[in-house]
């Protein structure tokens, strides 16, 4: 079996026990990337030399009998909106095409000191705005299961690189489903932590009150290993929760109570719903109690989400003036306003649309009509969820209401594109954790089961995800 098919735990053990070296592992992965990348297009930048150097240093450490860390040799692709010192972080945008951060994001620091190796920066929709990775200036990431279809987004490069065996695991960011959507479309596991569990320091901001960095892996176990390293408070992000560093484990537990959200199954394609009902049956056979529940305010979730996300985006993207970093445009001969308007016209189409919509909803006189109302809906949803979590350990449903569609199919209809986020935005609006686990295939295309839990109830969510994974045994990576 080639080394690039191994799970994180096997990689760490294999390297520690010197069954193979980190250098051999990384070399095999680079070979794999060379072979499949022309089909998938998951990477924006590769970190070949530095990755191999890190691997050699790790091998030396192990030969010398030094501590190697819980993720020793694990090769990660990192979404290209997470700052990596000395390595380009472009957000798939012309506005940051030459940006090389002077610092590492907190999550990167933690992963590196745990022994992980960054193999490259993963493709995304520009500034993480999109659900398909088609809004990247590097072209769309293609779905490894059918390369004529979208990989999902915005962390499409992260999920596709994991499914295509181009890395061990990945980091994405999830503002309205951007980790879970591509995980679902590519048949891998993707987790959005509770708001405040993982530091956002060094994540290029899109909508600060909604987003979290989250791991993507081929198994629940891989996702747990990464979460254990990145979770915990950070003095550089005051929205991280001030508590002891949590540690999650894989536990064989049964007897869960799960609420199947009927608004999610009713709104989904029949093929998707069928797989989710099958998933509920699988859980029942494992001794869980599944009941249909209602979350009536879900009908307002998207309007609330797109109001808040665009409002925060328009404010966050105001900082890109192209003066200190950006692309090459001489300010000589320009007047102040005309320079900025000209430079900023290089934002991609979706980013521009969101800046304008965000500016609209924040306009004088409209604040109470949109932004305040959106926050009231957030509160309403949170209350409904909290009531349900008194009776159920988790809420389940499809991650995406549809199957991965053809590249280009929805790109000219932004509203139609926004509507596919209906099942994922709830977790971002309420700050609650959610995970997408492969549930099976409909018409040969992946379907993800979404499991949501109460704030900071990651352990319960992971227990049920693990239980389901062990029972369902769904294929993770396709032939390429």
């Amino acid at each position, binding site marked *: 079996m080639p080394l690039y098919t191994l799970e994180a735990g096997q990689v760490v053990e294999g390297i520690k026990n010197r069954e193979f070296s980190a250098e051999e592992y990384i070399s095999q992965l680079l070979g794999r990337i060379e072979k499949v990348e022309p089909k998938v297009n998951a990477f924006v930048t590769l970190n070949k030399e530095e990755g191999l150097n890190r691997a050699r240093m790790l091998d030396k450490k192990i030969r010398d009998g030094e501590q190697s860390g819980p993720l020793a040799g694990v090769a990660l692709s990192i979404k290209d909106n997470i700052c990596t010192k000395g390595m380009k972080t472009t957000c798939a945008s012309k506005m940051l095409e*030459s*940006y*090389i951060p*002077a*610092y590492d994001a907190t999550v990167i620091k933690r992963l590196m000191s745990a022994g992980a190796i960054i193999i490259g920066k993963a493709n995304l929709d520009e500034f993480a705005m999109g659900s398909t990775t088609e809004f990247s200036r590097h072209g769309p990431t293609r779905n490894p299961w059918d390369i004529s279809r979208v990989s999902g987004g915005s962390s499409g490069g992260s999920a596709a690189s994991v499914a295509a065996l181009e890395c061990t695991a990945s980091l994405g960011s999830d503002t309205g489903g951007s980790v879970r959507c591509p995980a679902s479309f590519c048949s891998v596991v993707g987790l959005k932590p509770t708001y*405040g569990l993982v530091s956002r320091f060094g994540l290029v901001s899109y909508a600060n009150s909604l987003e979290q960095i989250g791991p993507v892996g081929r198994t629940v176990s891989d996702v747990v290993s990464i979460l254990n390293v990145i979770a915990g*408070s*950070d*003095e*550089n*992000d*005051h*929205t*991280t*929760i*001030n508590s002891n560093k949590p540690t999650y484990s894989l536990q064989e537990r049964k007897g869960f109570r799960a609420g199947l959200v009927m608004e999610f199954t009713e709104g989904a394609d029949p093929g998707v719903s069928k797989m989710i009902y099958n998933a509920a049956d699988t859980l029942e056979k494992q001794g869980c109690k599944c009941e249909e529940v209602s979350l009536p305010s879900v009908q*307002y979730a998207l*309007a*609330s989400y*797109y*109001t808040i996300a665009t409002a925060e985006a*328009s404010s966050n993207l*105001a900082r890109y003036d192209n*003066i*200190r*970093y*950006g692309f*090459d445009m*001489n*300010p*000589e001969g320009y*007047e*102040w*306003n005309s*320079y*900025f*308007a000209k430079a*900023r*016209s290089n934002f991609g189409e979706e980013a521009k*649309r969101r800046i*304008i*919509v965000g*500016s*609209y*909803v924040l*306009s004088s006189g409209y604040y109470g*009509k*949109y932004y305040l*109302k*959106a*926050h*009231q*809906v*957030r*509160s*309403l949803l*949170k209350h409904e969820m909290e009531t349900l979590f008194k009776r159920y350990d988790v809420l389940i449903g499809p991650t995406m209401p549809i199957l991965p569609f053809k590249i280009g199919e929805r790109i000219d209809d*932004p*509203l139609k594109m*926004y509507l596919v986020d209906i099942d994922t935005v709830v977790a971002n609006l309420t700050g609650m954790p959610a995970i997408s686990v492969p549930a099976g295939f409909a018409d040969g295309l992946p379907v993800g089961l979404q499991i949501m839990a109460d704030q900071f109830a990651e352990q319960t969510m992971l227990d049920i995800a693990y239980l389901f994974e062990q029972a369902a045994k769904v294929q993770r990576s396709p032939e390429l």
Partner: protein
Amino acid sequence: MVVTREEVKHLGWLAKLEMSDAELQRYTAQIEEIISYLNMLNTIPLEQVKPIAMKKKFSELRKDAPENFEDAVLGTRYRKDGFVKGPRMV
């Protein structure tokens, strides 16, 4: 009509985004559709609902001390006398 071409143009000016006529035309139609959808927020009886508020205890903030990032990390090559050069103010 919920959103006019003039409004989109004005918002573009406020947000410092230059748009071609073709872009303006396309965005106006799309933004009209998006804002009409967001108008759903005005149909919800929300009088009794308070906006969401954070109750949790936040992490201590780091000490507000300056850090020295060498200026070599700045992406621009337009400089003068050790300063970064910007467009003319007046």
